[in-house]
Each structure stands twice: as C-alpha cells, then as structure tokens.
C-alpha cells in the first residue's frame, strides 16, 4: 500500500516537473561529427605519442652512443698511458742492457789488452822509459839545435824529478853537469 502511494507520488512529481527540453533534430549528425572529431583527436594523440616515443628513443640512443664514445675514448686514453709506461720501462731496460753490454765489451777489451801484455810491470817500465827518452830527446834538441838552454835545463830537471831511477835521468844529469861546466869555463874565459 505504502509502495503504491510512494510510486504515485513520484510519478506525479515527475509529470509536474515536465520532460526534458526537446533535443535537436540532427542529433545523429551531431554525434557522427563528435565521433569523427574524437577519432581524429585519438589519431593525433597516438601520432604525437609515437613521435614523442621516437624522439625519446632517438635522444636516448644519441646520449647512449655519446656516452659509449666517451667511455671508449677514456678507455683508449688509459690504454695509451699504459702503453707509454710499458714502452718507457722497456726502453729503460734496453738502455740498461746496452750499457751493461758496453761495459762488458770494454772489460773484455781491457782484459784482452791486458792479456796481450807479457808482463804488465815490464810494459809500464817500457812506457816510463819511452816517456823519459822523449823528454830527454826534446831537451837535447832544445839545448844543441835550438840554443834554448834554460828550457833545456828545465826539461832535464823534470826528467830527473819524474824518472830519477831511469838511465835517461842519468843522461840528463850528465848533460846538466856538462852545461854547468861549459858555463863555468865560459865565465873563466871572460875573466881572463
């Protein structure tokens, strides 16, 4: 009973409220236009989304490539530095080996040279004798041929000083005494 009363009330209230405003006659055409607009909008959105995705992918690819290149560059720089260090180390090693070889060769030469000498002391003595002879020879030339008495005396004295035990020192002493005698005789002659 109550339900019927409620139903009646609602229906009467609905009737008194009036119906909806009449809808335009070309509703179907309006709906089609809206559907077309929506389809176009959807298409535009999809194309735009695809463009954005493509752009993002391109950007990502570009950035990734750039990063990869930079990483490669850094890796190459590190490799070059390592190669430089290795090369320097190798060069130093080669230099040391060459130096060592040179030293060894020189040592061998010296050893060979030393081995060629029958008696080293005798060889030294020969060389000393030879030097003393040369000095005496030069002093003789200065005294007898070039008339450079003072220089000759100095040279004889040096032979006596440097090689006192040699026979050339003895000859230098004799020549010096000869020079002194000559000087003495000449001074007497001058007095007479």
């Amino acid at each position, binding site marked *: 009973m109550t339900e019927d009363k409620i139903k009646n009330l609602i229906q*009467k*209230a609905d009737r008194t409220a009036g119906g*909806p*405003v009449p809808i335009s006659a070309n509703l179907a055409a309006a709906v089609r236009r809206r559907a077309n607009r929506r389809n176009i909008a959807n298409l535009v959105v999809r194309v735009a989304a695809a463009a954005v995705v493509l752009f993002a992918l391109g950007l990502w690819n570009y950035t990734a490539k750039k990063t990869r290149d930079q990483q490669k560059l850094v890796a190459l720089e590190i490799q070059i530095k390592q190669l430089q260090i290795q090369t320097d180390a190798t060069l130093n090693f080669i230099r040391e080996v060459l130096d060592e070889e040179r030293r060894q060769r020189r040592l061998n030469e010296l050893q060979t040279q030393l081995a060629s000498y029958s008696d080293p002391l005798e060889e030294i003595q020969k060389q000393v004798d030879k030097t003393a002879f040369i000095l005496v020879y030069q002093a003789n030339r200065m005294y007898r041929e070039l008339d450079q008495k003072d220089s000759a005396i100095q040279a004889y004295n040096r032979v006596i000083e440097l090689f006192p035990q040699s026979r050339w020192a003895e000859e230098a002493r004799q020549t010096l005494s000869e020079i002194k005698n000559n000087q003495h005789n000449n001074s007497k002659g001058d007095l007479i």
Partner: protein
Amino acid sequence: MAKNLDDELLVGQFSRGDETAFDRIVEGYSADIAVLANRLLGWPGEVEDIVQEVLLAAFLGLKKFRCECSLKSWLFTITINKCRSYRYKQMLYLRFFSRAAVRASVLPAHDEGKAQMDDETFHKVRLAVQALPLKYREPVVLRYLQELSTDEIARILGISKNALQVRLSRARERLRQDLAELIG
C-alpha cells in the same frame, strides 16, 4: 523478441556500414534516453549533452554489442554510467570552485524557478528523490518512473535481484521517513 530482432538487424546494418541504422537508433531511443537522464539528474530539463555523450558512446561501441540484452537496456546502462560520471564531475567542479555552489547544485536553478509554480507537494517529493543516495535513487527511477522489470533493472545496474529488492526497500523506507506527512 521482435524488438530484439529489430535490434540485431539494426546492429548488423550498422556493422556493415549502413549509417541510416544509427539514424534509426537515434530516432527510436533518444527520447527515452533523454527522459531517463532527466530523471536521474534531478529534472534539470537540459540533458542534450548527456544524450549526445550516450549516443556517442553507443556509436563507438555499437559494433561490439552482442545483442545479449535489448538495445534499450544497453543504452540505459550507458546512460546511467554517463549520468554518474556527469554528477561526479559536476560535484568535483563545484566542490573545487565554490562550496556555496554545492548547496545550490542540490536543486538546479531550473527547479528553483519552477518550484514556485509547481505544487509544493511534488516539489518536496522530487527533493526527497534527489536527496536519495545514488544506489537508491537509480533503482527508484528505473522501477517507478521507467517502470522496468526487476530483471531488466538488475541487468542494467549489474546487481542481483535480491540486492535490487534490498535497495528498493531501503529507498522506500527513506522516502517514507522524508515524506511522512504526505504519505500519512
């Protein structure tokens, strides 16, 4: 059954690209959709936007319609969903821009002006129906104003018949309380 056959025929023609089929659907159902939308939204009178929204959704989805229910039920389901969305958007909009406007939205301006001319009693009844929560208002409108069967209403609202009965019962109880002086 004949109506269902007509529906199938129309949907078949539309699927084959016959645009006059849609014209016939609009011609046949737009008035019913407008009346339902008007009632669900609280008798604002101006419901062409909602009707267009409903028909647009139907136009875009008609090829997927399988004729498992009548075309009218399907269109009413869309109408109910569109009205819910519309009210929700309107509520958000008003809540966002003006709290005062929310109060005004309870009764549209159309009704306010008309209320003076309307009988005071029916104005109260409409207010009471509008004040019902959505889940009670929809069954009330479909049952007492659209006079659909319980099976059809349950299918349109996507609920069981028992749930529908419960909602109707609770809606009546609320209306009985709100309209006690009128019912007696």
